[in-house]
């Protein structure tokens, strides 16, 4: 049995809060045994819950009492906080963005008694914060190449093996150190080659397509807004393509664990693809346009350490027997006003 029990009572508990609204209530403390309270904290907290590592931000942390509590004490401590401008509450599968009033007693040499009360934060007039992370929204898993490119990629993966295997066979002849060096060289070659391919892919594709200009009407959008994507290219010669498409997608991306034990989980929430060109030839100055609407009820972007709700737009041209052109742009999608 704990030495004291904490409970939170909220005023107007079920009501959603907008930025600038107040969260009011009181913390009750029932004391069973003598407690040396190093601090009764009442905290306004935004945090993530779900499959990823927990992120949390204590917006306000008030210490409302320090001292001794005696058995039988029943105490009440009021609180009042202003709700900041986001991020808004979100409940998904892998990720939940939660606002709560959290209270705990700092007790030396023991688990701290604690209690919490969750409330909902929705958008106000101004666009809210989309989370604290300065890091870019991660790309969601998409096919970075068309299925038709699998033989090409496989060939690129086999080349290092052909280079490395003879080295390894020679080196294995009684020279384990050289065998290790050979294996390491193959791995380095494969990794560097892979990175170089991804980095150079669009430049190689543009040797056929000419400079490709992908323009978005906006990269910061509200739910319900329309997004227009315009692609301009002018190949010097006619180029055969298998097709070109624009892909709008959103999903949760969370990471659990650290170091060698990190696992990233992804959950796709929205995927909408518009084909802007069918299989055929592209010649001369060409313009493709695609229009999307950010659907009502879709979630807004969020980004904190190890916890993201990412929106991306990907434009892709599939060129036969040649690397694809792939361009991905992260979007910031803001919640709708309720």
């Amino acid at each position, binding site marked *: 049995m704990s030495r004291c029990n904490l409970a939170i009572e909220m005023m107007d*508990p*079920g009501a959603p809060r907008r930025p600038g609204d107040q969260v009011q209530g009181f913390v009750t403390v029932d004391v069973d045994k003598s407690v040396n309270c190093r601090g009764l904290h009442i905290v306004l907290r935004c945090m993530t*819950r*779900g*499959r*990823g*590592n*927990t992120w*949390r931000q204590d917006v306000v942390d008030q210490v409302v009492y320090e001292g001794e509590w005696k058995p039988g004490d029943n105490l009440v401590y009021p609180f009042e906080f202003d709700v900041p401008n986001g991020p808004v*509450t979100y*409940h*998904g*599968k892998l990720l*939940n963005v*939660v606002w709560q009033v959290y209270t705990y007693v700092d007790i030396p*040499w023991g*688990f701290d008694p604690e209690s*919490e*009360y*969750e*409330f*909902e934060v929705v958008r106000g007039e101004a666009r809210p914060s989309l989370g604290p992370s300065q890091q870019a929204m991660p790309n969601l898993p998409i096919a970075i190449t068309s299925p038709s490119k699998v033989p090409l990629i496989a060939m690129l993966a086999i080349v290092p093996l052909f280079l490395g295997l003879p080295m390894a066979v020679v080196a294995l002849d009684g020279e384990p150190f050289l065998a290790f060096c050979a294996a390491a060289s193959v791995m380095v070659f494969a990794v560097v080659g892979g990175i170089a391919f991804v980095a150079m892919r669009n430049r190689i594709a543009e040797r056929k397509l000419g400079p490709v200009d992908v323009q978005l009407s906006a990269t910061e959008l509200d739910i319900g807004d329309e997004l227009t994507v315009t692609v301009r290219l002018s190949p010097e010669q006619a180029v055969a393509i298998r097709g070109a498409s624009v892909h709008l997608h959103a999903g949760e991306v969370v990471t*659990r664990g*650290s*170091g*060698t*034990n*990190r696992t990233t989980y992804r959950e796709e929430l929205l995927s909408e693809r518009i084909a802007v060109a069918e299989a055929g030839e592209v010649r001369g100055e060409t313009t493709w346009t695609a229009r999307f609407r950010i659907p009502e009820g879709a979630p807004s972007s969020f980004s904190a350490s190890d916890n993201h709700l990412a929106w991306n737009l990907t434009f892709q041209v599939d060129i036969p027997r040649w690397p694809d052109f792939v361009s991905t742009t992260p979007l910031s999608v803001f919640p709708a006003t309720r």
Partner: protein
Amino acid sequence: MIGAYAHLNLRMNPFGELEPRHRAQLAVVRLDTVLAHLDAPRAAVQFVGACGRGKSTHLHALRAALPGAHYARLWTDQPDPAGLSGTVLLDEADAVGMIRRARLFRAAERLAIGVHRSFATELRLHGFRVHTVHVSAADPARLATLLRRRIEFARLAEGPIPTLPDHTVHALRARFGDDVRAMEDALYDAVHAMREVRDVAL
């Protein structure tokens, strides 16, 4: 009261990632032998086991029991383990380079480490008396207690909450062996799919 799992009378999905202090609070571990061993200077305890078996949970529980101890783990905002002394709890010690590890082993007075393979020889070379704990959730009763504690911890209010029947625990053991993390992943999805309070089924 709001929340994604309020319909199950839960504050959160019980099998999501927990903060370290809550993992320590919910751990089903016996530390009396370990604490007695660590009472003497130059004593080391190693928790040995594969990923997801509970090495970090043991160290977090030890951290709660030894408030003066330093906890360190690479790739996090924890302090550089090589600079620590006194009682040190080092997670993923096998990922720390040999030179930094040697500096730490020389400076630490008491040591508890989480590792995938035994470091007994290396610890003894540094003058430690070594106690080894092979971490596993093979005991069904202990496993059931651990998982049921997680559900109870997520309780929102008085009243019924989802229950974990014995047959589900046995099914988890049959499918995942003693890999608690894999069990948590399966249970996370199972609870997420529940629309009403009932037994958790895979």
